[in-house]
């Protein structure tokens, strides 16, 4: 029978009652951004030549040596209740910071060694459930 132990080493400090309560993001710097629908951004890795050919290299960067693409600018209000997401120069989404009814555990699966880590507990998400608005 397939059976896998879940490693909980990483999250023990999160459950310390003296740990300062965090909102968005978690103490480990993770957060969930939820959008109704989908984001139209490339999700396949591109070569430098392909990036140059697309003539959109201003949006590309690297993070720890891996290609990443910049897709927007997020603004969170001072009271940590509202959020605005700007996508490109033409679209803006209004959203909220929502406390989750049931906290979500972030599981990391490694298919090579079969290890499963519970690596974070997320209690809030930045939620955009309205249609995009134009930027005037």
């Amino acid at each position, binding site marked *: *029978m397939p059976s896998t132990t879940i490693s909980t080493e990483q999250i023990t400090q999160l459950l310390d009652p003296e740990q300062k309560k965090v909102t968005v993001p978690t103490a480990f710097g993770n957060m969930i951004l*939820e959008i109704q*629908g989908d984001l139209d951004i490339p999700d396949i*890795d591109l070569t430098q030549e392909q990036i140059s050919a697309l003539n959109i290299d201003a949006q590309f960067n690297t993070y720890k040596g*891996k290609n*990443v*693409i910049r897709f927007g600018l997020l603004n969170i209000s001072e009271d940590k209740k509202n959020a605005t*997401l700007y996508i490109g120069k033409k679209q803006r989404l209004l959203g909220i910071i929502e406390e989750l009814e049931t906290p979500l555990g972030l599981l990391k699966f490694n*298919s090579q060694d079969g290890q499963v880590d519970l690596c974070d507990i997320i209690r809030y*998400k930045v939620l955009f459930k309205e249609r995009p608005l134009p930027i005037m």
Partner: protein
Amino acid sequence: MSINLYSKLKQENSNISYKLIELNDDLMHVLKDKDTCRGLRFKSLDNEKSHVVLCSEDKTWLVRQKDHSNMSMIMHEGVVDNSMVIDPSSLFGLPPPITDYIGFARTTYEYETIDTEGRLHLDFVPIYDGEKDFSPPKHQQGLIFEDLLKKSPCSKGEALAQWHSLGGSTIEGQVCLLSSQFISKALHVTLMSVLAESMKLNELKLKSSYEAVNKDMDSGFNPYTVEVVETVLNKFGRQTDITSQEPTWELNNSAIAKWYGIQSLKKYVNKSALPIDEFMLQWRSQFPPFFPCDIDMTMLRGHYYQPQEKQIQYFARNTLSMDPKDRFKTLFKLQSSWDLRDIEPFIEELNVKHLKIDSFIMKYARRRRVGKHYIITSRA
């Protein structure tokens, strides 16, 4: 606070994937306890068809994929390798971003965790009937309890409770279930032996109980091994001092009385009915001398019906249909009117939506009040 948002481009051949799982109150409780948080594990019967469950030391949750129409991006705070100069016209009057967030996984579902009852997987467990040469089929040989636990979508605590309740034992290191007949014999022998030694039924030790059982045995083959006696103590009692080096069991006399009652039903009223008074005498005569217990027909509810007034006959519940209509039809064929309390054990397993039992019954039958009790009759 302004933040630059990035998304990682998909890496081919990546071995890492991320999923979100609901951590309900029970799971949070398990995680907060340093002794239990290391025991969480995913289990499934096979890699493809069966459900996945999440088990702690003593609880089991069914893991179900809950799809939604939104896209969730899981992001991590970081700093991109090359600082980017953002065109002020792209800031829309906001202050320049103070940090970067990089999306490393996208998902359109979460794993829901639903409280469920873990089940032992007993397909590979042979039945032992007290025979001298115990040789189970090849595919059932060599299994130990730890293997059984690994093969079962079940937590350890639930597995042990079910194992004890089913009469799980070991014969020469091999796990097995004791047959109903052999359990009856082993229980009777154990009770006779400990009562003969004037041992207290609420303070039984395994060693002395086994010695009492062994005292009366001939030098030949003795099927009542220490494991069998332990199985009897576990099935009909509970350990009262688990931490002690030599644990003590307290026997549950009413569970023992019920067991004797069900065996008496099978023996005396299996094919024809008997008057209740006569059956009670037969039931009482089954116990070892001086066994202290009260007996009452209410203990046997769900195992008999009354074909005529004040007469009873045994009925095996597991032969009933799983279709509620058919089941009610069969029950009213056996007995035209039932006391609500008598019919309840026969139909409670069908009430999967956990309605109030009389509301559930009223979907398939009529209910009328007679004095303090409810009488259930057929709709037809």
